[in-house]
């Protein structure tokens, strides 16, 4: 079987695009293709990844301007047709700004830009991005953001909980989810959520930075492999 093409969108100011490309290339059966923000062609990609960084310098609000990049028209159509889209860090911010996911990310509650290893608990392993994790498995995946404080109105939080759409929550190494294990003030310790259809996932931690042993953790790797399992079975 030929390798499955996975698109990595490059916005001006993306800085994890090549790390993400590397993680995709390192996933057996995947072939990355870089998609320039100014294009309209997804080049046959079967999944789209929005990488981390500072698209448009985070001007106005993180992700606000990238959301109107030419290629986002195709990405939004692609997502609405049910194809997989994964947004990491700034990519998550872009997904929220575009309305593909609900809520918003504001400044970390302790005012600091945080760049550190975190533990996240996999509270939903039934998504196409998390099928290779165990239910409630704790993953060591780093974060690097200044605006990762997840906020949503109460009705959205209720819907997220009711439909099991919270995928990752900040925890300690034993999987305890408490205020002490919450690095940025996110409501319900939310680190990642999925849309209703289950094909769009956004998360603040960087799975591509935890995709092999030499990086200190390879817990992020199975996110890409889960996606492969899903696409290969189609």
């Amino acid at each position: 079987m030929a390798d499955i093409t996975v698109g990595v969108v490059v916005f001006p100011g993306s800085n994890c695009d090549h790390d993400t490309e590397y993680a995709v290339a390192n996933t057996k059966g995947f072939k990355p293709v870089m998609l320039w923000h100014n294009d309209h062609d997804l080049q046959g990609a079967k999944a789209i990844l929005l990488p981390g960084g500072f698209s448009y310098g985070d001007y106005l609000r993180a992700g606000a301007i990238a959301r109107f990049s030419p290629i986002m028209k195709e990405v939004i159509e692609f997502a609405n047709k049910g194809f997989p889209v994964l947004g990491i860090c700034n990519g998550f911010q872009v997904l929220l700004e575009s309305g593909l996911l609900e809520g918003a990310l504001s400044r970390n509650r302790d005012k600091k830009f945080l760049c550190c290893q975190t533990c996240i608990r996999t509270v939903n392993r039934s998504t196409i991005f998390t099928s290779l994790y165990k239910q409630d498995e704790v993953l060591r995946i780093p974060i690097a953001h200044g605006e990762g404080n997840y906020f949503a109105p109460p009705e959205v939080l209720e819907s997220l909980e009711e439909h099991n759409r919270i995928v990752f929550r900040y925890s300690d190494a034993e999987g305890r989810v408490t205020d002490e294990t919450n690095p940025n003030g996110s409501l319900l310790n939310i680190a990642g959520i999925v849309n209703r259809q289950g094909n769009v996932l956004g998360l603040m931690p960087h799975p591509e930075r935890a995709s092999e042993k030499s990086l200190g953790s390879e817990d992020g790797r199975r996110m890409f492999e889960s996606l492969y399992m899903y696409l290969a079975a189609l």
Partner: protein
Amino acid sequence: MAYTAKIKVTLRQSILDVQGKAVEHALKNLGYQTVESARIGKYIEVIINEEEMALAERIGNEICQKLLSNPVMENYSLELEKIN
């Protein structure tokens, strides 16, 4: 005819304003004990080339809702001023 749209974007009261908090603490440290709080927002000026004020206002509101503010966590106010 043109109008200047003077737009203020502020964080909703329910959202923690960490920049505002830092400024508030700095003001208190400077001895301004009567300062109760500080909140930081954005001020944006957009010049709109339209003949009719109503149309300029409609565009002003549209751009605020579409791009300049995020209704999930921000409010905006819009004021139009005719440019002579």
